[in-house]
């Protein structure tokens, strides 16, 4: 019992209570001066949900995140497939290549994209040396999505590889021996069996992308505004903790609602696809 007590205490005091406190804060009043007064109000939620500007920011945040999850799936799936089919030593090295970027700071990776995508960046230098026009690759949603996809492909690939790893090779062999071609085996056996990994990966990447902050700032500049940026501005610059907390709750709630919808749709699709 002594082993677990300190950590439970630590998590209650520095994780559960702060979050509970944030929920509480979102119902407090913001006076003209000072941070907050202990008086119950729904005004913060009315403001958070009533402002069409907030909805625009929310829509952008979710749109970039959905796009990121979809592209990361397209890129992550082949990587996972290739990884689980590689033999021992090769697989170990592929994993080093896949996990190393994961452990490099997001700030450093954004910097790499700034060098590549910038107005006088390497790609534009290359294009111009062939007489091409200057391309706007950064400080717009395009740059943000490129950066997000770059960060989340390894997460997606690892989630899918986990599922592919559990498929018995006998299944595929059996399908082959019954005369199914390569693509048929893939679509009828491997892909359906890997779906749990695909769900886990897309959910994870979506959640992570919704709350990303560094990439939208560095690669989006002043042309992109996502929810985490708005919330941090509200807290640190406008010093409005109640409204910042309410906006955080709105982000939580809507993300949860979208995920619930996604899981429901997937379950229905799964039921249809089964004979």
């Amino acid at each position, binding site marked *: 019992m002594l*082993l*677990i007590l*300190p*950590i*439970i205490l630590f*998590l209650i005091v520095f*994780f559960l209570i*702060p*979050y509970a*406190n*944030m929920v509480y*804060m979102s119902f407090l009043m913001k006076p003209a001066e000072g941070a907050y007064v202990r008086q119950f109000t729904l005004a913060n939620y009315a403001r958070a949900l009533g402002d069409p500007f907030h909805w625009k920011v929310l829509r952008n945040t979710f749109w970039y995140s959905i796009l990121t999850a979809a592209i990361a799936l397209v*890129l992550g799936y*082949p*990587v996972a497939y*290739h990884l689980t*089919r590689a*033999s021992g030593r090769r697989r*170990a090295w592929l*994993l*080093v290549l*896949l*996990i*190393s970027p994961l*452990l*490099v*700071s*997001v*700030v*450093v990776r*954004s*910097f*790499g*994209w*700034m*060098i*590549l995508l910038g107005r006088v960046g*390497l790609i534009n*230098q290359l294009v111009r040396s062939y007489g091409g026009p200057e391309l706007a690759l950064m400080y717009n949603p395009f740059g943000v999505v490129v950066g997000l996809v*770059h960060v989340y492909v390894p*997460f997606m690939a690892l*989630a899918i*590889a*986990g599922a592919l*790893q559990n498929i018995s090779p006998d299944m*595929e062999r059996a399908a082959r021996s019954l005369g199914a071609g*390569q*693509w048929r*085996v893939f679509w009828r056996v*491997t892909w359906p069996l890997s779906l749990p990994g695909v769900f886990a990966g897309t959910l994870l990447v979506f*959640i992570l992308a919704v*709350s990303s*902050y*560094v990439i939208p*700032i*560095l690669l989006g500049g002043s042309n992109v505004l996502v929810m985490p940026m708005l*919330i*941090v501005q509200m*807290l640190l610059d406008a010093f409005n903790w109640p409204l910042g*907390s309410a906006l955080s709750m709105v982000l939580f709630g809507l993300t949860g609602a979208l995920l619930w919808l996604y899981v429901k749709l997937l379950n229905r699709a799964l039921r249809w696809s089964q004979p």
Partner: protein
Amino acid sequence: MRRGPLSGWGLGAAVTLIYVFLLVPILIVVAAAFNAGEYLRFPPQGFSLRWFVRFAQSESFVRAFLFSLQLAVYATLASTLLGTMAALFIVRHARRVRDALRLLMVAPLQFPAILTGIALLIFFYATGMGTRGMRPLFIGHTLVALPYVFLTVSTVLFGFNRSLEEAARSLGAGPFVTFRRITLPLIKGGIISGALFAFITSFDQFPISLLLISVGNTTLPIALFDYLRFSYEPTAAAVSTVSVLLSVAIVLLIQRLVGLEAVSWGGPR
């Protein structure tokens, strides 16, 4: 050896391109750090270490670097101790509440770090602790590093053969001797890997730090971020390169100690 149905050239080429996409932005930063010119041009203008010298001479970067190292060491020690204890308890002793406890242990990983940072900021002000000094950062970093230690040590413990411990006990060893001589050496690799994950999580931590730093206590990622918002000259690349090398060293160490495969899809993500 398992050969899949789609192991042809097409898949190989596509996957190679994706790995290039993953690695190029990182390699380009390293290349920029060793480039002699003021700006990064293609082709590069010769090899030079001048930007590393500039880094070493920059007081703000060096101070942030040392501060980050110190903070990461403290957060690693705390999260490794707490996380290992929790893993031992949950894997071995918890029965009915095991799932609930596991959920609680990994919760800091599931919640967006930026919102956790905000919650902590408000909490520290509300309780009068404030955000001065290293303490708030230490708490925040320990919090987000904990799940990694817990998951890695749990993974090792699940694959652990308990008959060795029973043998030691039956030969007359007490619980502490058994732990020190049998259990600890066997799960050492897992603990060290967890600690390495915790270290890099803290050293690279951004969202929590952004909200909890105070004047004079800036971490390296924040210093780099502030710098990049206004300019990107190669000193930042030299700083980044040091951080990249640290990450690569840690990946290779974990690979040697327990194998990346065990920690990538052995336990929950």
